[in-house]
Each structure stands twice: as C-alpha cells, then as structure tokens.
C-alpha cells in the first residue's frame, strides 16, 4: 500500500522524466485529506488512466498538477521545474505547456468555436489583441487544422452553445492541443457524454496524444474505457496510489483494492459494445449530453 509506485512496464528507466510528482498532499479547508503523499512519474508519452471511486482524489490530483487546486505539500516537477514554488508569472508560463480538458467541456458558451480554440493561445497574445481577437496567422492556421482533425471542419463560426456535448468536447480537445502542450490533463472527459460518444472522444484523445507524443493523464470513472484506451492505469484509493501498472494487470483483486469489494462480473451498467465501425473518430452525429 505504501507509495505503491510500480515500475513502468517495458523498463523505461533511462528515459527522461517528463512529470515527477513527489509526496503530493492536499488537505482541504474542511479537513478532508484528498491526497496523501502521492508519488508518480511519467517518463514516456502515452495515456495514463487514473481510476478510483468518487472522492478518491483523482480530480484533486489532476487539478493540483496545474495548480487549479493549490497543493498543501509536495513537489510537481514538469521537465525538472517545480510548479509548486512558481510565482504567478512562472505558473502562467508553466500552464501554457499544460493542456487541460474538462468533464463539463468548459467552453465559453457565448463565443464561437474558433474563439474557443484560439483561447488556447492566450498565453502568447497581449490584452489588446485579445480584445480584438487578433491571433498569429500560424495559430489561426493551426486552429483550422485542429478543427479538421477533431472532425469539426466548417464549424469555426458556430457558437459553442449551439453544439452537442460530443462536439463541445472536440472543441475542448482542440483548445488544449493548440497550446502544443508537453502534458495533457484530462478530467473525466466522457462523464457528461453518452457511451458511444464517450468512446469516440476517448479514441480521439488517445490518437492525438500518441500522434503528438504528448503524455496524457486521464481521469476515468469507467474501468472499461481505461482498459481499452490507456497504456498505463493508476488506481487511487483514499488519496493514495494503490495500483500502477499496465491495464492487463487489472484483475478483480486489484479492482477490489481500488474500489473496495464488489461483484465485478455483474452485468455492465453502461458502455455496451459499440456497433459503429469505430474507425472514424470524426462522426458528427453525437447526441447532446
């Protein structure tokens, strides 16, 4: 149980550390100890799924990494720089390198798709240009490319509140990726989506993370999605990492350790086998969430 950090499968010992989290602790003002000395290292790109029951600290963990939640103690080293000690300017510079995707998409609803995507470049633009929506031509170009890549070609002038849930999350993905991040934080990306759209979104996140060789930490409440789309699964329980291994190592006893005892062979509650071909992540008929 204590600091259960298992070595990465495949023995990637020599690779540089992209992210290193050391004894990260978060105690909320209510006294709740959400994170209790978490040690965690990412050395190679790929999708790390974080699973655990509600309140296990998944969300706090991911939000501590870019300090949307201030850690109580510990260190967070992104390419060797400790994010915890950074001042405001330093934190902004670090956040520019960290893309984040949210459960509720968190698009600015009254802005267009293009404005939302380009918001990912705000760290590189001044206030006057922000107000005038003047972005570098290369950024606008990249935004069009990304919209095409996430399957929203031609949607750039739609208002975000006119999109379905799946479409909104695609915009959220494009906004995170236009930052050209060194790390992707993805907080329950599919929890507001129907099972089919959820799989499409997870597939898209995985493809893009692999394409761009960007490590992604993805909170998931759905073990099946974690099994299918992650290279590595980290299990949280009561603010500690109790499992850290390849998805194939997830068996009933480890699930018991993460979630507590349960009949893991009960009929599935959601996520039936997808009937779609699954080859095209660009389907646009997402049902609204």
């Amino acid at each position, binding site marked *: 149980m204590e600091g259960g950090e298992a070595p990465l499968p495949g023995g990637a010992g020599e690779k540089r550390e992209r992210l290193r989290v050391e004894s990260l602790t978060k105690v909320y003002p209510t006294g709740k100890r959400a994170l209790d000395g978490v040690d965690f290292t990412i050395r190679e790109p790929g999708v790390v799924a974080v699973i655990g029951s509600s309140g296990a600290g998944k969300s706090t963990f991911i939000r501590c990494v*870019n300090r*949307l939640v201030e850690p109580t103690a510990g260190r967070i080293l992104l390419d060797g720089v400790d994010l915890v000690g950074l001042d405001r300017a330093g934190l*902004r*510079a*670090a*956040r*520019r*390198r*960290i*893309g*984040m995707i*949210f459960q*509720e998409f*968190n*698009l*600015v*609803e*009254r*802005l267009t798709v293009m*404005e939302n995507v380009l*918001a*990912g*470049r*705000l*760290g590189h*633009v001044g*206030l006057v240009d*922000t*107000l005038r929506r003047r972005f570098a031509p290369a950024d606008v170009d990249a935004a069009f490319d990304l919209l095409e890549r996430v399957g929203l070609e031609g949607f750039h002038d739609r208002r975000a509140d006119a999109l379905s849930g799946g479409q909104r999350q695609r915009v*959220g993905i494009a*906004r995170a990726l236009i*930052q050209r991040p060194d790390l992707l934080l993805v907080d329950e990306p599919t929890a507001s989506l129907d099972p089919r759209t959820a799989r499409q979104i997870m597939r898209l996140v995985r493809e893009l993370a692999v394409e761009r060789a960007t490590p992604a930490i993805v909170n998931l409440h759905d073990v099946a999605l974690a099994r299918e789309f992650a290279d590595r699964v980290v299990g949280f329980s009561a603010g500690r990492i109790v499992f850290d291994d390849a998805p194939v190592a997830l068996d009933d006893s480890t699930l018991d350790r993460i979630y507590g005892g349960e009949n893991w062979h009960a009929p599935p509650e959601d996520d039936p086998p997808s009937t779609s071909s699954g080859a095209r992540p660009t389907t646009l008929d997402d049902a609204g969430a």
Partner: protein
Amino acid sequence: MSAAGPPRPPHGRPKAGGQFPSGDRPPGGGGAQAPLRGDDTAAPGRTWRRRAPGETLRAWLALAVGAFVAAWSVSALDIEWAFFRDAHVQAADLLVRMWPPRWSYLPAILRPLVETIHIATLGTAAALVLSLPVAFLAARNTTANRATWLVGRAILVLSRSVNTVIWGLVFVAIFGPGPVAGICAVAARSVGFLAKLVAEAIEEVHVGQVEAIAATGARTPQVWAIAILPQVLPVLVGTAVYRWDINVRESSVLGFVGAGGIGLYLYASINQFAWQQVTVILIATSVIVLASEALSAFVRSRIS
C-alpha cells in the same frame, strides 16, 4: 370558504366505479363525469386548510400592525383635510384650464425634447463605460482584495443612494446650467445601477469557463476579457438599454434644477400657469417615454 364541507349525498348508485348500464349515464354531462361520481364513497370528513390556526393569527396580527403604522403616519403628518373637501373641484378646474392643448407650442419644444433624449443617451453611454471597471471592482470573485471590494461597493452605494435630480443640482453647481450637467447627473446615477447588476452577474459566472481559460496560462485581464465578459455581456447590454429608458423619463425632470432638457420648459410653463402648454409637454413626453420603453423592450428581447 367551506374547507371542511360535508360530503355530497350519495347518489344511490348500486356500485361505485363507473359501471353504469348504458342507458344510465347522466344526460348532457358526457361520459367524462361518470368516474368522478364514482368516487363519492371516498373518505368523508377530510379537511384541509391553507393555513394553520397559528399562521392565521399571525396574518391578522400583521394586518393590524400595518393598519396601525398607516394611522400613525397620517396623524403625524399634520395633513390639512380641508384641502380634500374641494379637491375634486380644483382637479376639474385644472383639467378645464389644461384643455385644449395648445399645439402651436409644439414646435418650440421639439428641440428640448430631442435634447432630453440626447442627455439620457449620452449619460447612459458614459455610465456603460464607467460601470465595467466598477463592476469588476465590486464583484467578490474579481476584486483584488477586501479594500478594493469596499471601494467598489462604496461607489455603488454613493451612486445609487443619490437621486438623479440631486445629482443634477450637484453638477449644475459644478458645470453651470445646461445639458452637460444633465449628462453627468444621469451618468452618475446610472453607474451604480449598471455596475451593481453587472457585478452580480460577474459573481454568478460559470466558474468552469473561467478555470479553463486560466488553465491555458492567460493573464488575469485576458481571463476577464475572454471568460467573464462574454458571460456578462447580455446583462450589461440589457441593463444599459433598460436604464436608458429610465433615464429618458428621469432627464425629462432634470430641467427643474437647470440641468437641460424638456423639464426647463415644463417648469416655466407651470410657473406661468400656461396649463395648455403643460398639456402639450406632458403628451409629448409621454409619447417619447412610451416609444423609448417599447424600443428598450424590443432590444432586450433580442439579446441572447
């Protein structure tokens, strides 16, 4: 009234439940009534009251207190009741003197009428610009610290607690009589109104959108401009348009204190007992106020 009314007498049907022989349905009432009548056997003597006895007592007490306060106020005001005796005569007399409107006066008041609208419009526009920084100062989630929040709140209170006409007096003393004082008076009163509502809107923005923009590494002013401003813009515009139509009404009396507009002409006509001119001014002002209200309502209905 009869909350505890006795149950209706039974109809003597052999069986409840709507199983009437086909010829036995009540004529004219249609089939829909039949099941209702079938329920007559249900629990007699159930009562229901809107208020518990204690609540009823409290309601009567509240009414008594209200009556006492009203009586007290009237007795304290030293009202000259004799004036009431011939009030209807005076009113009728005034109406006679006001009629017919002297329409020949209309061309003379067109310019001050337009000036009134200009005062309202420019004052509202100035207030719109000034209210944004005040709103960000007075909203708990965007203000820098407690001191700046208090400054913001103080501006709101100062602006709102002083009536537009009083502001007019102040600015006439500063700028001298004329529309500039009126514009400043309208702006001074409207800043607090707009900023208060916008500050409330800022405090209620969707936090997730703000977080998402902050997470991209944007600076705080950028977060405000991209994540907060679009969310409060409908409130800002809607409130400003609404305030504009209030301001059209208020600037029509600003002339009473010399701050420009139609009020000056109204005041002069009243002082000269030119009641037929007063009628023309009142009618013209009503038309403009109604038009501005309609325009304001239309614009607000189109904001999304």
